[in-house]
């Protein structure tokens, strides 16, 4: 292996060098001796590892917020007759005479969805792990643009700040659902939650989209341009493939949401009529004519559907990596895994109208979207098969990360099956807007992505903080969460099949639903139980940062490049030269090898006993 420092010569590309050569050398030495101030090191940092931790800890904050909000509305749904005076110190005027304010209930639902989908499972998940793992696993010293990466985090931070402040508005935060369909979201006189809260929601989302785009262009460029020598696209870990395609999806879909949000802002504040037409409200006719609310739904779901893959694909990538490492087996069907990710990415853009089967669309068009939607079952099925085949006869180590990865596969199957039901237009029209839909997407995308997030944190915590998380607490956390999630969402399917609609404040007025009072109570109790279980993780996480057992360089005996760095990699990641790559990332339990794993940076000339006939000794 080449241990000498890289030669500084003409920069790759068609345009020539950006800086004179000597400056490069000065920078190199400059960095080694330079002590950064606290602010430039931990706050306005351009180091991808620090930015990843910033995303993670902000994401944890938002996850607690989102979980707490859901506990509040589950209390209302589970015990509609209960008095909630005891919540008055927290909620103030939103509890009147012991009853939760119905307007505030809508705001709770809206905020729970927005926070979980965007702030936790988009920014907290791909923001954390794309940032942390892309440079480390492809063999780069940092992202393509550290400055834009820093901006990405701070746009996210300000976006979150705006959303957080909107919780304390007199009229409450946005309350039109996380999909903010107009005209409800466009007319401040419709509900209190369409007032200032909605304006702040739109401002927050605009900032969030800018954050995602700044991050996404960086991820893509880093994967394309900054892979170390030998790291061809067919030697990339599946995590990187997943992060890469996730960023591509975001790059193509978030600008469309930005357009929709901008037009909605104009409708709300500048008197245009893009989405509004012929509306009577409170006995008054509005003068908006010519708008189309369905147009908003098309624009929204053109982002909204890829968004669910933006949420799930990073989790898929990390789970593939963790399953292979802890089963001590190569991932089954590496190229099929890449192919299925590509398939999902393409299909993501041609299925959005399956959210709109009841908008009165042409039934022929509906059946086209139904057909395309059901095709997604194919790449999803390929992935599930490959995960199970990877586990088959593996030498499985049940680490916390492994448990959560297996849990991910379980939840993805359980939630994916109902997706086939809902993808059918005829069935969807019956199930539309019921708790069946809620149960479906909470399993397949919400809980699954959370399990991927937990698996990732448990697995890469040693590289992030140089210490190990506690395994016993990890097991407790896993079982509380795994059981809790199924107890919440399995019964919810029944409530949904019976027709109970989502976003309703209470069902007590309907005889047909009152028989589900006990079931709803059960779901609520399970939800609060699962939420409380997460504090085991939060304790474990923060305790282990300071007091955890010290990690070694490669505690999981994994073969990817991040484990060739020091225990806590500094700025620049590798103290010497960046290692070159010679083999794919899944050489586990290779017959004839001395160890049960061979890192990617070991050339074939050093592993003569285990080389396959087609693996020639390069260099």
């Amino acid at each position, binding site marked *: 292996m080449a241990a000498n420092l890289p030669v500084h010569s003409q920069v790759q590309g068609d345009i020539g060098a950006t800086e004179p050569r000597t400056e490069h050398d000065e920078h190199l030495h400059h960095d080694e001796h330079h002590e950064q101030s606290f602010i430039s090191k931990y706050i306005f940092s351009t180091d991808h590892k620090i930015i990843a931790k910033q995303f993670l800890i902000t994401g944890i904050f938002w996850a607690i917020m989102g979980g707490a909000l859901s506990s509040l509305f589950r209390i209302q749904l589970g015990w509609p007759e209960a008095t909630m005076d005891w919540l008055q110190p927290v909620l103030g005027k939103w509890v009147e005479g012991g009853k939760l304010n119905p307007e505030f209930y809508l705001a709770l639902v809206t905020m729970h969805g927005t926070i979980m989908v965007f702030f936790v499972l988009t920014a907290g998940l791909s923001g954390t792990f794309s940032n942390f793992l892309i440079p480390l696993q492809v063999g780069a010293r940092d992202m393509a643009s550290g400055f834009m990466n820093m901006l990405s985090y701070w746009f996210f931070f300000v976006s979150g700040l705006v959303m957080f402040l909107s919780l304390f508005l007199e009229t409450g935060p946005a309350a039109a659902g996380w999909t903010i369909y107009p005209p409800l979201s466009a007319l401040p006189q419709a509900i209190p939650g369409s007032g200032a809260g909605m304006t702040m929601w739109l401002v927050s989302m605009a900032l969030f989209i800018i954050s995602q785009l700044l991050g996404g262009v960086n991820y*893509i460029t880093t994967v394309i341009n900054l892979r170390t020598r030998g790291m061809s696209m067919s030697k990339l870990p599946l995590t990187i493939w997943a992060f890469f395609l996730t960023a591509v999806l975001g790059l193509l879909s978030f600008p469309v949401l930005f357009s929709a949000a901008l037009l909605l802002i104009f409708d709300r504040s500048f*008197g245009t009529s893009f989405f509004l037409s012929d509306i009577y409200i409170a006995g008054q006719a509005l003068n908006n004519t010519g708008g*189309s609310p369905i*147009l908003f739904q098309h624009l929204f779901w053109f982002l909204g559907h890829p968004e669910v893959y933006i949420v799930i694909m990073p989790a898929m990538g990390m789970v593939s990596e963790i399953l292979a490492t802890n089963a001590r087996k190569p991932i089954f069907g590496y190229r099929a895994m890449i192919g299925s990710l590509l398939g999902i990415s393409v299909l993501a853009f041609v299925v959005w109208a399956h959210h709109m089967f009841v908008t009165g669309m042409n039934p022929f068009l509906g059946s086209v979207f139904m057909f395309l939607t059901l095709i997604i079952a194919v790449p999803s099925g390929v992935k599930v098969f490959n995960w199970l085949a990877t586990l088959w006869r593996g030498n499985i180590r049940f680490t916390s990360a492994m448990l959560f990865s297996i849990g991910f596969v379980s939840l993805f199957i359980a939630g994916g099956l109902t997706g086939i039901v809902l993808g059918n237009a005829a069935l969807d029209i019956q199930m539309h807007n019921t708790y069946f839909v809620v149960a479906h997407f909470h399993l397949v995308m919400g809980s699954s992505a959370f399990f991927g997030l937990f698996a990732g944190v448990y697995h890469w915590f040693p590289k992030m903080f140089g210490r190990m998380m506690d395994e016993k607490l990890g097991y407790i956390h896993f079982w509380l969460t795994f059981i809790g999630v199924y107890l919440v969402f399995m019964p919810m399917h029944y409530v949904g099949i019976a027709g109970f609609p989502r976003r309703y404040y209470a069902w007590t007025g309907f005889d047909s639903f009152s028989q589900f009072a006990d079931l709803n109570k059960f779901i609520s109790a399970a939800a609060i139980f699962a939420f409380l279980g997460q504090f085991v993780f939060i304790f474990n996480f923060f305790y282990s940062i300071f007091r955890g057992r010290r990690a070694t360089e490669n505690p999981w005996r994994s073969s990817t490049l991040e484990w060739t760095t020091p225990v806590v990699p500094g700025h620049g990641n590798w103290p010497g030269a960046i290692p070159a790559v010679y083999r794919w990332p899944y050489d586990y339990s290779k017959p004839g090898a001395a160890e049960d794993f061979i890192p990617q940076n070991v050339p074939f000339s050093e592993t003569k006993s285990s080389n396959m006939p087609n693996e020639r000794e390069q260099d």
Partner: protein
Amino acid sequence: MHSSETLTDKEPGTGVHPLRMLLILIIVSIIMMFAAFTSGYIVRREEGNWLEFDLPSGLLINTVVIALSSASMQWAWFSARKDNVRQVQIGMLITFALGLIFLVGQWNVWGDLVANKVYFGGTDSNPSGSFTYVLMGVHAFHLITGLVFLVITLGRSLQYKVHSRQMLAISNCTIYWHFLGGLWLYLYLFLLLNH
């Protein structure tokens, strides 16, 4: 990039510099945004209740202005290839001035539209007019970012950092400027054919 990162020990990629790649991806995201606007425009127009109006003639003049600015930008780029620093700066200054003239021209077109009773919002507005304002306005916003990019590149040129062996900045700036001109040409033709 990390300051000690060199592109020589990398896997041969697309042959495109990382900063160029970032620019291309940003351009892709802007294209997606306008794809959303223009496809929304077409979907909305098909639904009827659509005010038809003639586009002000000023748009044609503005289109010529922005085409000229692309030409002066290209001239600056060729000058940089020939290490003619003075011409680079003159070319970029002309481009900047034409960009400003374009923006003022667009502002005047908005005035003409209002004079023709085509409004952005309010009781008498129709989505056909509102869309025209939005397309022009969002394009103008991106043109302002292009002007900022021009100023930054001009600043580098004044420090003698733009010449035949340091073409990255001015090439990126030229690409972005041509993109903004091309985007306007697309929007102008789109409005001509679909108003």
